[in-house]
């Protein structure tokens, strides 16, 4: 299969998208180019024809059936090295020369994304946010914080399905109000029960659902929200310099999660219109979606990996907003030490309070 690189018109080096200036930039001669200009230049280059770089591939052994279906092998157009990916790899880098390669076949036909939100934050910003993420965490093991070692940082365009829909809702709640009064002998509580009905409609735009099984869903939802106003029509040039996967979860398979989120938020929104009650409990809800549309988009995520005591920890940063998330390990010794300390202090305060209550 062929891979595609955007060549620098000045020095023929592989161009990379620079999130800071929002242009393609040559890492060799530092020349900056507009995306549209490079795209037009690249089309001209394509018309010039290509070299024949076929090789005799008799060496090696045959792939097993599983390997053959899962693995893909590409040839780097800069150095001729072999880039091994899988069936979902859409953009990667050559392990030999480090040039950025885009697998064009992943974007052909129906698989081409509709939109992409370009990276606005670079790797340095991700490192800075990681350091900030570790600060102020009392139970974080000191060794983890001090070593501060990151195994890998990757900028990845993650495939998302975006759902637009209008929702009609009929929701009924059981609500209560209470009134209290007293006489000389008793305290009284009157609880009044109401059936509260609300109907209406609400609309959602671009509800994202992770389209890649390789990205944990909770991690991807934790870096939300994205500002879709900054999305642009997809062009492969934006992928240069980053990794990208094509989707391996279909839009149909993502509908369940989108429905779940939309239904929950619809119920919450109408619940907010029920005021003046002590308790409000949903009894029945019917949410009907219509005019639903689905789009395919690439969203920017910085992924950071580190290992602590043999366990892998993955952090993610929203490449657009800088929101940084990732679970951290707990210092169990410190946890129980301070739990015991707080038990003694709180117990002593309570015991002292009991004594003082006797004196007052």
């Amino acid at each position, binding site marked *: 299969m062929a891979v595609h690189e955007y060549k620098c018109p000045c020095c023929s080096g592989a161009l990379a998208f620079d999130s800071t200036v929002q242009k393609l930039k040559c890492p060799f001669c530092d020349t900056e180019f507009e995306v549209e200009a490079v795209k037009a230049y690249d089309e001209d280059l394509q018309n010039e024809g290509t070299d024949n770089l076929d090789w005799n591939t008799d060496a090696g052994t045959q792939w097993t059936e599983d390997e053959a279906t899962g693995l893909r092998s590409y040839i780097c157009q800069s150095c001729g090295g072999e880039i091994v990916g899988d069936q979902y790899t859409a953009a990667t880098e050559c392990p030999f020369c480090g040039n950025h390669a885009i697998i064009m076949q992943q974007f052909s036909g129906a698989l081409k994304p509709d939109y992409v939100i370009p990276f606005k934050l670079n790797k340095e910003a991700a490192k800075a946010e990681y350091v900030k993420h570790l600060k102020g965490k009392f139970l974080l093991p000191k060794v983890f914080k001090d070593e501060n070692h990151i195994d890998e940082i990757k900028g990845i365009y993650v495939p998302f399905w975006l759902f637009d829909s209008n929702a009609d809702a009929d929701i009924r709640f059981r609500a209560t109000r209470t009134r209290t009064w007293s006489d000389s002998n008793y305290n009284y509580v009157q609880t009044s029960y109401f059936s509260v*009905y609300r109907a209406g409609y609400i609309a959602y735009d671009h509800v994202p659902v992770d389209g890649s099984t390789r990205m944990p869903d909770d991690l991807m939802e934790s870096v939300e929200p994205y500002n879709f106003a900054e999305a642009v029509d997809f062009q492969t040039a934006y992928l240069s310099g980053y990794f990208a996967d094509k989707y391996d979860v279909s839009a149909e398979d993502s509908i369940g999660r989108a429905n779940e989120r939309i239904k929950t938020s619809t119920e919450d929104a109408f619940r907010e219109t029920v005021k003046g009650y002590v308790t409000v409990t949903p009894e029945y809800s019917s949410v009907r979606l219509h005019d639903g549309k689905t789009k395919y988009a690439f969203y920017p995520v910085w992924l950071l990996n580190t290992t602590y005591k043999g366990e892998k920890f993955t952090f993610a940063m929203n490449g657009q907003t800088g929101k940084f998330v990732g679970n951290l390990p707990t210092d169990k010794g410190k946890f129980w030490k301070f739990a015991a300390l707080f038990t003694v202090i709180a117990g002593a305060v309570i015991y002292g309070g009991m004594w003082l209550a006797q004196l007052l």
Partner: protein
Amino acid sequence: MIKRFTAILFALVLILSVATLPAYAAGEEVVYSYRFDDNADLLTDAEEQALNETLYDVCAACSCNVVFFTANDLNGANFSHLNTAQDYTQRYYETCCGVNTDGVVCGLILHDEDGDRQVLLYGSGKCVKQLSDSESEDIRNNAISNHNPDRNGYYDFLNSIALGVKGAVPPHLKWYMLPLALIIGFVIALLIMAIFKKQLKTVQMERGAVNYVRPGSMNVTAARDTYLYSTVSRTARPKNNSSGSSHSSGGGSYSGGGSKF
């Protein structure tokens, strides 16, 4: 954050300490007394001296007045008008120490208004709270059962009551209070640690899609609030919030009671 929690705990201790200082300061200025009047002449001189020594200890340990007396009957006391053992004992105390002063009074009356022998034990002032009805009853019952004057004499009987008062009136906590305080402390500690642990977990699924609601798109087309029915529940109001009951036959407030035997 650890500093914040430590500061809160120490502030709590400080507030509680400061709140109790006036009580201690006020207590130091009062001089308490003790006395034993053997009007019924039930004890020997040596026994009276021994009992007085015990009452001195009780007075010092409890920081309150201690009045013990014996009486043949309720006659000849012009301070008591109701002619009951309770009124006699409470007015006896007020005559000695004043109304609602901090103290304990124990009266042993050989012939009360019904002609029965009765022992009465009351707390006054702060001792209303410290010597509850049940504690007074326990002390009386213990004396009647284990130090009955018909077997051991009146000195042993009254001395056991004095020692009972010494154990009940000073600030004291039941044995299970310490483990109870530690259990509550452990629960509080776990809550604090849960807050610290929550800092480490930032990955979770989004609950809904509230960030993706189209601005201004929500419209409520129908809203009905229908009243269904009501229920009324009632709970009895507490009559008294103090740990010891407070009752009187006319003067100050007292806890405790009397037992015939």
